[in-house]
C-alpha cells in the first residue's frame, strides 16, 4: 500500500516572550511527530487536551506553518508549497470540524455550502455539477427537500452530515476529522460514525481521525497513535493497541475510560496529577512526572519511539522488547 499522507519529524513550536525583559520561551506543541497513512486506513490521534493532536491536523492542512519536518501528500512534498500549487494540492485533504454549526455559513443554503468548494476550484454550474451535488447529498443521507434549507434549520447530526458532504465535494484523498462526533448527542453519534465508516469503504478514503474518546477510536480506526505533550508515545495497529497497550500513559488512558457496567467499578489504578505545561516540559521523558514506573533514567533521557513488537512502537525506557504478545 502506498501512503497518501506521510508526515516526518513534524514539529511546531510557538514562541512567546516571558514578560517585558524576559527571554523567549517556546511552547513545543508538536515535537517530532512521524506517521504515514495509506488509502483505506484510519489513523486515530488520541490524547488529552493540549497534547498537540489538533495542531498536527492544522499542520497537515497547512493552516499553520511547521517549524521543521516534512509533509508529503500523495508523494508530493507540500511542506513549503505556496500559492497556486498549494491550492491545487489542498483539494486532496479536507477537514470535518467538531462543531458543524460554527463551521457552516448561516446565510448560505445547504446546496450553496456543498457547491462552494467546487466553484472555488473552477467547476461550472451545469448538469454534471447538479448530478455531483445530488450524489454528495445521497452519500451523506440528506434528502432533496432539504437542499434549500439554511444551517439553523438542521439538527446537529444533519449539520454534521452537511459538513461531511462539503468536505467530500472535491473528492479528497484524505479526510481530517477533528473530534467529529464529540459535540453530537449520543443517539446521533452512532449514525455519523456508521456514515464515516461507510464512506471510507465506498470512496476509498483515508482518515486522520482526532479524538479523545477511546471507545470511538476503537470502532473507527485501523491504526492508533497516542500523543502526550507534543510527541507520539505509542503507535500500533488498532487490534495490537487495544489488546496490549504498552506505554504506561496509554494504559492509564484506557483505564480512565468509564466502565460499561456498574459491576466493574473501581477496578483500576487512576493516574495521579495533571498534564504539565507545554512551555515548561519535564526533562527526559515527558510523562515521568505522572508515571508510576518512572526511575532515574526517565529524568535523564527522552526515550525514543522504538519498535517493541512487530509494528508496535513505544517510547518508554521500561517497556521491554518482545517477540510475541503476552496474556494481559
Amino acid at each position, binding site marked *: 500500500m502506498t501512503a497518501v499522507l506521510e508526515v516526518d519529524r513534524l514539529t511546531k513550536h510557538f514562541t512567546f516572550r516571558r514578560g517585558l525583559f524576559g527571554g523567549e520561551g517556546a511552547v513545543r506543541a508538536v515535537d517530532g511527530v512521524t506517521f504515514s497513512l495509506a488509502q483505506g486506513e484510519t489513523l486515530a490521534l488520541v490524547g488529552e487536551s493540549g497534547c498537540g493532536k489538533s495542531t498536527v491536523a492544522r499542520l497537515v492542512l497547512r493552516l499553520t506553518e511547521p517549524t521543521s519536518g516534512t509533509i508529503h501528500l500523495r508523494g508530493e512534498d507540500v511542506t513549503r508549497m505556496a500559492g497556486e500549487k498549494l491550492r491545487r494540492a489542498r483539494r486532496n485533504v479536507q477537514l470535518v470540524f467538531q462543531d458543524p454549526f460554527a463551521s457552516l455559513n448561516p446565510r448560505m443554503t445547504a446546496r450553496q455550502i456543498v457547491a462552494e468548494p467546487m466553484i472555488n476550484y473552477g467547476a461550472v454550474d451545469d448538469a454534471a455539477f447538479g448530478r455531483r451535488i445530488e450524489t454528495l447529498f445521497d452519500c451523506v443521507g440528506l434528502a432533496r427537500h432539504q437542499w434549500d434549507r439554511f444551517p439553523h434549520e438542521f439538527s446537529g447530526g444533519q449539520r454534521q452530515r452537511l459538513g461531511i458532504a462539503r468536505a467530500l465535494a472535491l473528492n479528497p484523498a484524505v479526510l481530517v476529522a477533528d473530534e467529529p462526533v464529540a459535540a453530537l448527542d449520543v443517539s446521533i453519534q452512532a449514525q455519523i460514525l456508521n456514515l464515516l465508516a461507510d464512506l471510507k469503504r465506498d470512496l476509498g478514503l483515508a482518515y486522520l481521525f482526532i479524538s*479523545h474518546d477511546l471507545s470511538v477510536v476503537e470502532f473507527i480506526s485501523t491504526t492508533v497513535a497516542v500523543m502526550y505533550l507534543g510527541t507520539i508515545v505509542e503507535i500500533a495497529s488498532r487490534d495490537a493497541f487495544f489488546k496490549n497497550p504498552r506505554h504506561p500513559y496509554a494504559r492509564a488512558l484506557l483505564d480512565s475510560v468509564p466502565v460499561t457496567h456498574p459491576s466493574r467499578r473501581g477496578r483500576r489504578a487512576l493516574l495521579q496529577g495533571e498534564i504539565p505545561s507545554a512551555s515548561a516540559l519535564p526533562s527526559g521523558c515527558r510523562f515521568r512526572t505522572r508515571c508510576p514506573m518512572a526511575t532515574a533514567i526517565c529524568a535523564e533521557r527522552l526515550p525514543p519511539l522504538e519498535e517493541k513488537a512487530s509494528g508496535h512502537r513505544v517510547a518508554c525506557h521500561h517497556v521491554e522488547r518482545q517477540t510475541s504478545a503476552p496474556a494481559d
Partner: protein
Amino acid sequence: MQQPVLSVEQLNVSVQTTNGWCPIVRDLSIEVAAGETLCLVGESGCGKSLTALAIMRLLPRGARIDGGRIRLGGVDLAALDEPALRNVRGRDLAMIFQEPMTSLNPVMTIGEQITEGVQRHESVSSAAARARALELFNKVRIPDPQRRLAAYPHQLSGGMRQRVMIAMALACRPKLLLADEPTTALDVTIQAQILEMMAELRAEIGTAIVFITHDLGVVAEIADRVAVLYAGKIVEQTDVVSLFDNACHPYTRGLMRSIPRLSRQAGGAVVDRLTEIKGTVPAPTAVPAGCAFSPRCASATEQCAAEPFAEPLAPSHLVACWHPETATVTANAGGAR
C-alpha cells in the same frame, strides 16, 4: 426506603417562545435519599438542566415552574420567596456546573470565595472559615492547598477549578448537591479522578446527589439509581444495575446499543457497525403527541398515539411505554447475542 431528602412531585417547567409558553419538563417526579446518587440521563434539550435549575429555583428569565412540588427535607422550595431561598441555597442545597470558570468570580481569590459562603450561613470567625476551606481543599485533593487559597480562578487548570467548585459546594455540608455535567469538559484521566473523589465525599458527608449527565459510562461509574429523560418526561426510572441488565424502554435500550464500547470492557470482538436510533430528538416546540419517542421507535403501534403512564414493571422500576421490552439487553460489542 428511608425518608427522602429531596422529593419532586409532578414538576412542570416551561420556557417562553415567540408562540407562547412551551413545556420543557413534563410531570417529573423523583426522590433522592441521603447518601444516594440519582442520575438524570438524557440528550440535549430533554430538560435535565432545567430540572436542576428549577430545584435550585434559579430558572433564567423566560422560564417558569408551571406546577408541582419540590420538597427538600420537609420544606417546599417551590413556595419559598427569594430571601428564604438565599438561606437555603449554599447551606442545604448546592450546585456545580459543567464549566466552573463561569461560576467562579474572576476577581476574588479562591479562598475569599469559599469563606464568603461559609460566613454567609454560619456565624464563624474568618480564621475558622479559613481553616474549613483548608480542610475542604485537602478533602478534594488540591495539592499545595495553602498556596491555592490565595490563587485566582484563572491560575488554576480546569480540573482544579472543578475541585474548587466541589469544595465550595460542600462547604456547609448540604443535604443535596445538584451536579450538572460536572466532568463533561474534563479530560478522561481527570474525570476518573473527580468521579472517584465525589463518590468518597458522598459516603463521608452523606449528601444526596442529583447527577446530570448524557454519558452512560459516567452513569455506570457513579449512579445508585437512574432516571432516563426523553423530551421532558421520565421514560424509565430504576436502580443502576437493573438499568444496565434489564432496561425496558426502547429508548433506553437504543441508547445502550448505540454507544461504542471498548472490547476489553465489553468482551468479544469490535463491531463493524453500531446500532443506530433512527431520526433525531424532536425540538421542544414540536414534541409528538402521545409517546414522544414513538416516531423513532421500532415497536411503536397505534396505541402509542396515547400517552403511556409510568408503570412499575418491578418494584421501583418504572417504565412509561406501551410495549416495554423485557429480554436481556444486547450491548454493542459483546454481551449476550
